């Protein structure tokens, strides 16, 4: 009994609470930037995939199929070790800055492929007549995509996009592979401390709760947004 209680001693967890909060803060900065950028990348890719120009379509489907089927760890290692360290494509001389941006780029490039596919399924829900009507009043392809098709496609896939973003938030934990010190890296550092001997289970529980505090409201928000923006036909 005594031993069991020891396992759930949250003392070491709260002793290192500052470091853990900093880990979460680093992860939030990554998630926020990657959230915005992956929506942009995904939208552009979805535009490519339905474009009338074959080269753009090939690029779109090639990108999605390669990136979506590559493990995220590999994508991020490619960014940090491959592009940054080996090829010297650094965003800045400051390691924490350059690894941050590579993590943002890697994670958004990866998530963008999923955003693209969600959005493309949304485009498929927009009746063909909407595009025909748009073209028949003289809108160009990009205008009809921007003004008519995508706004309706986005409304149709708000809920699945929420799932993609939640997955993205949790995927930030892989960014430690890209030498970016977010919450997973902080946790691992703590576990390696000899003084942290009994803190493993509380740490896992604490970090899991931390993620839920972020992802549960995200899910609720997107569910609410999906209802609010639904298009009546």
């Amino acid at each position, binding site marked *: 009994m005594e031993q069991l209680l020891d396992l759930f001693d949250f003392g070491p967890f709260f002793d290192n609470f500052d470091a853990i909060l900093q880990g979460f803060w680093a992860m939030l900065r990554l998630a926020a930037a990657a959230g915005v950028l992956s929506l942009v990348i995904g939208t552009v890719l979805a535009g490519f995939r339905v474009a*009338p120009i074959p080269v753009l379509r090939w690029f779109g489907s090639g990108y999605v199929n390669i990136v979506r089927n590559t493990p995220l760890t590999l994508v991020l290692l490619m960014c940090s070790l491959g592009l940054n360290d080996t090829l010297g494509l650094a965003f800045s001389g400051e390691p924490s800055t350059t690894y941050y941006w590579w993590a943002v780029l890697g994670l958004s490039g990866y998530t963008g492929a999923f955003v693209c596919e969600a959005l493309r399924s949304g485009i498929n829900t927009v*009746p063909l*007549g*909407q595009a*025909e*009507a*748009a*073209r*028949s*009043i*003289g*809108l*160009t392809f990009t*205008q009809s995509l921007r*003004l*008519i098709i995508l*706004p*309706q496609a986005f*409304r149709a896939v708000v809920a699945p996009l929420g799932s993609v973003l939640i997955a993205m938030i949790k995927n930030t934990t892989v960014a430690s592979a890209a030498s970016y010190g977010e919450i997973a890296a902080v946790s691992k550092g703590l576990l390696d401390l000899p003084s942290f001997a009994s803190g493993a289970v509380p740490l896992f529980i604490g970090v899991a709760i931390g993620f839920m505090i972020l992802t549960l409201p995200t899910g609720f928000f997107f569910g609410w947004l999906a209802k609010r923006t639904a*298009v*009546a*036909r």
Partner: protein
Amino acid sequence: MTDNEVGSGAAEGAAPQDASDGPFDATGAGPLVVVENVNKHFGDLHVLRDIDLTVNRGEVVVVIGPSGSGKSTLCRSINRLEPIDSGTILVDGKPLPQEGKDLARLRSDVGMVFQSFNLFSHKTILENVTLGPVKVRKQGKAEAVKNAMALLERVGIADQASKYPAQLSGGQQQRVAIARSLAMKPKVMLFDEPTSALDPEMINEVLDVMTDLARDGMTMIVVTHEMGFARKAAKKVVFMADGQIVESNTPEEFFTNPRSDRAKDFLSKILTH
């Protein structure tokens, strides 16, 4: 005069060309839409066979025929929603351009009204009508709204301007769709079975708007099953079957005295009940 020349071997005496004094540009008589020797296939199906059709300014041409006769395809090929395999289509003297900016410009001059209305479902009625003028014609917002309200007034929906399409009845939606096309000040309007998706009691409100348009001198190509409208508003009736123009005549002549067996058969089926 060859303005009623239609189909191989089906050429017909010209209907008198009366000058319209309506608000639309019907002054310069002469051909506005010329379809010449057009062919199109859907796979093995030969949907348009050697189609020739000339529509003059201010003229209302009604295209009728059984389902699958190619009449909708013909209508949609005139603004290149359906590309054709061979032949030429001239709108206002210019051949249809390839997909791109030029085609978008041409389409802005060719109004189109669809069977299923196709109003932009995420935009209000007013936004549906102002979108084209603002984004394509680069009109100022205030001016576009003023014109749109005038058009909505004309089709009798001004009081619904802030609603969304799904809140309107089919007949109202179709009248908005007509206003949306008119807002672009088109040279010619294409109607692809505009009343086929409507409840019977809503058909007349749409046909009334179309009859008014015809009276005002709008050039119109109308694919429809509404024989009453054809009799009342059309200058010329074109009968299509199996991808061909079988017969083309004035409405009086066509309905009272059809010459081809195919047309006689068709008319006997639809006019007996």
